[in-house]
């Protein structure tokens, strides 16, 4: 990855475009801005972008169509800006392959943190082959996690609500099944935003998640404790 990631910001509001550009540049990123889908298509071949920040609500061509088009071009990570409460936009965006979403009005620092996290997760940095579409459902040990809807269904099909922390932890574990993850690795992968780096936070999150998964804490079968400080998700994970 380059030292300075190149970000394409697509937003119809001139001031937001420019302010966000300035803000991200101050955080050490290179920024190109586009006012709408047409301009985005025009500037797309001119640079090599590591990430696209895309406002879904734009006049002219809808942001979702642009996201679809971008997906045919490359596997560049996309962070979408959705209207508050527009659940359907968010779900469609994530199902289309957006990597994350931030509701508008957004907190610039949070957006920056999300961009960082997505860049860290995307190894290629926007290069090469269009990547496989994201999973609609992740099945493990009879359970189903639907990432776009952020919901977990137990083997009986009942929705089991998760806290934000539990969901993130489960997603990280499901991405790396049958691999031992130390607490440090988990802290890192969880790009923990507010809480301090306490090992205990991970342990609490794991024990809560086990309870939700009806995984006996003393004799766990899904999330196993590894001696020496780590956890492993022990199950066949199928993404569909």
């Amino acid at each position, binding site marked *: 990855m380059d030292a300075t990631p190149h970000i394409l910001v697509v937003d119809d*509001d001139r*001031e*937001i475009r420019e*302010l*966000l550009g*300035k*803000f991200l540049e101050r955080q050490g990123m290179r920024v190109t801005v586009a006012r709408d889908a047409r301009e985005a298509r025009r500037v797309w071949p001119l640079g090599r972008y590591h990430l696209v920040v895309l406002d879904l*609500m734009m006049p002219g061509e809808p942001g979702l169509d642009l996201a679809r088009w971008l997906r045919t071009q490359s596997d560049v990570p996309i962070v979408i800006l959705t*209207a*508050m*409460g527009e*659940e359907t936009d968010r779900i469609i965006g994530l199902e289309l392959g957006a990597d994350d979403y931030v509701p*508008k*009005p*957004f*907190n*610039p*620092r949070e957006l920056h943190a999300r961009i960082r996290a997505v860049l860290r997760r995307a190894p290629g940095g926007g290069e090469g082959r269009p990547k496989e579409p994201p999973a609609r459902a992740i099945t493990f040990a009879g359970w189903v996690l639907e990432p776009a809807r952020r*919901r977990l269904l*137990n083997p*009986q*099909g*009942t*929705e*089991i*609500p*998760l*806290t*934000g*922390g*539990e969901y993130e932890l489960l997603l990280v574990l499901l991405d790396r099944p049958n691999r031992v993850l130390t607490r440090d690795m988990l802290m890192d992968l969880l790009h923990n935003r507010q*809480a301090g780096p306490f090992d205990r936070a991970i342990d609490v999150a794991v024990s*809560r998640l086990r*309870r*939700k998964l009806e995984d006996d804490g003393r004799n766990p079968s899904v999330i196993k404790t590894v001696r020496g400080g780590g956890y492993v998700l022990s199950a066949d994970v199928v993404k569909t």
Partner: protein
Amino acid sequence: MTLLPRSLGGRTALVLILALMVVQASGLGIHALDRVDLQRLAQAREITARSFGVWRTAVLAPPAQRMRMIADLDLPDGLTAEIGETPTVTPGMPRPPINVLRLFRLEQLADGRPPPPPPDMDDHRPPPGMDDRRRPEIMGDPPRGRLPPPFARFAPREILIANNGPFGFLASLQLPDGDWVNLRVELPPPRPWHSDTFLAAFILMTCAAVLLILWAVNRLTRPVRVLAAAADRLGRDVNAPPLEEGGPTEIAKAAHAFNTMQGRIRRFVADRTQMLAAIGHDLRTPITRLRLRAEFLDDDEQRRKMLADLDEMEAMIAATLAFARDEAAHEPATALDLAALCRTVADEAVDAHPDIAERIGYAGPEHLVLRARPVALKRALSNLVRNALVYGGAARLSLGAEAGTVRLAIEDDGPGIPETEIENVFQPFRRLETSRNRETGGTGLGLPIARNIFRAHGGDVVLRNRAGAGLTAVATLPA
């Protein structure tokens, strides 16, 4: 008037059934009177005929065997006969009224004249009374002893007659040898209900009519119930399907009016929602700009405060939008583990307020599955927990199910709410004066949104002050 049924159908059915009973009772009465008359007439005829039989037997039998032969006769109810040396009727006894004499066709005796000739049991002429052609002959002047043979020898020497009860008489007829045949006539009480089949048929008919009335009333009032159910549905969901505009004219008209009203309400709500959404939408851009601008402020203190203000503004917009959109109405219902939801909300509260973690908790079953809208219900629950934490410094959730109702309680340790305000706080933008400060903030929409969501689920939420200290929010859901 506590006996009057509450429902329209019940009242209509009651009136109709009462009317039916009156009609049936009078019909039955008329029928019974008719039957009583007929019965009396038939009995009177029989008694008259048999009396002549008795007389004939008495005349024909040898005097020694008379008593036994009379006793051997099988006489109908109401007629007794005996032979005596003296008449039971003594002079001075009242004479029977004319209507009784008419009944027994003894009008001729009304003025003390001799009775009509007895029918000849051996010939095949109809019994007396049935053949009116004979009447003039009798009514003429049938003097004693001048009766044509074979009647002449049957004529009694003397006939005494006296009253006996409302429908009876005593008669003493002197035989040629001087003995008396004493007849006691007393019609048995009439039995108009004598026929079992008649009563059964009557009861069956009445039951059938009552059932028919109940069915018809039920059918007629069904549209009213449908209308009530539709109004109830509309109260919960303005997008409920419209009523079917069929059936009788009045019902179709009512349904049409109802559908028109629902359409207007829907448009009104949609306009309002549209307006609020537009405001929310349009505010997004300036708030985003302000957020970005704040990042370029050099004064850290000012930046922090400005961002806090913006957070507050955003929270208010989010709550207003959520309230206006009534998100619960659009989210599909699914099987949801309410116990897991309670733990989730409690855990998130602990994460947000680690300093009072020991005062946040959940007590209840490990699992409790019901059909609900997960996102909406989580919002409702989070609002209640947030209120408990902000105003009461604690949030202890408990869950229980009893008699088809799930009861969810959230206790806090706060000062509670004055009883006069305990319902008012559910009104949008209503906040207690004491809470209108920046520390607690709040939009005044948390409770109304929570109540809307619980009600959209067919439940409700109320607040209760606890005797000791603190407030309990009690939410109910149909299991």
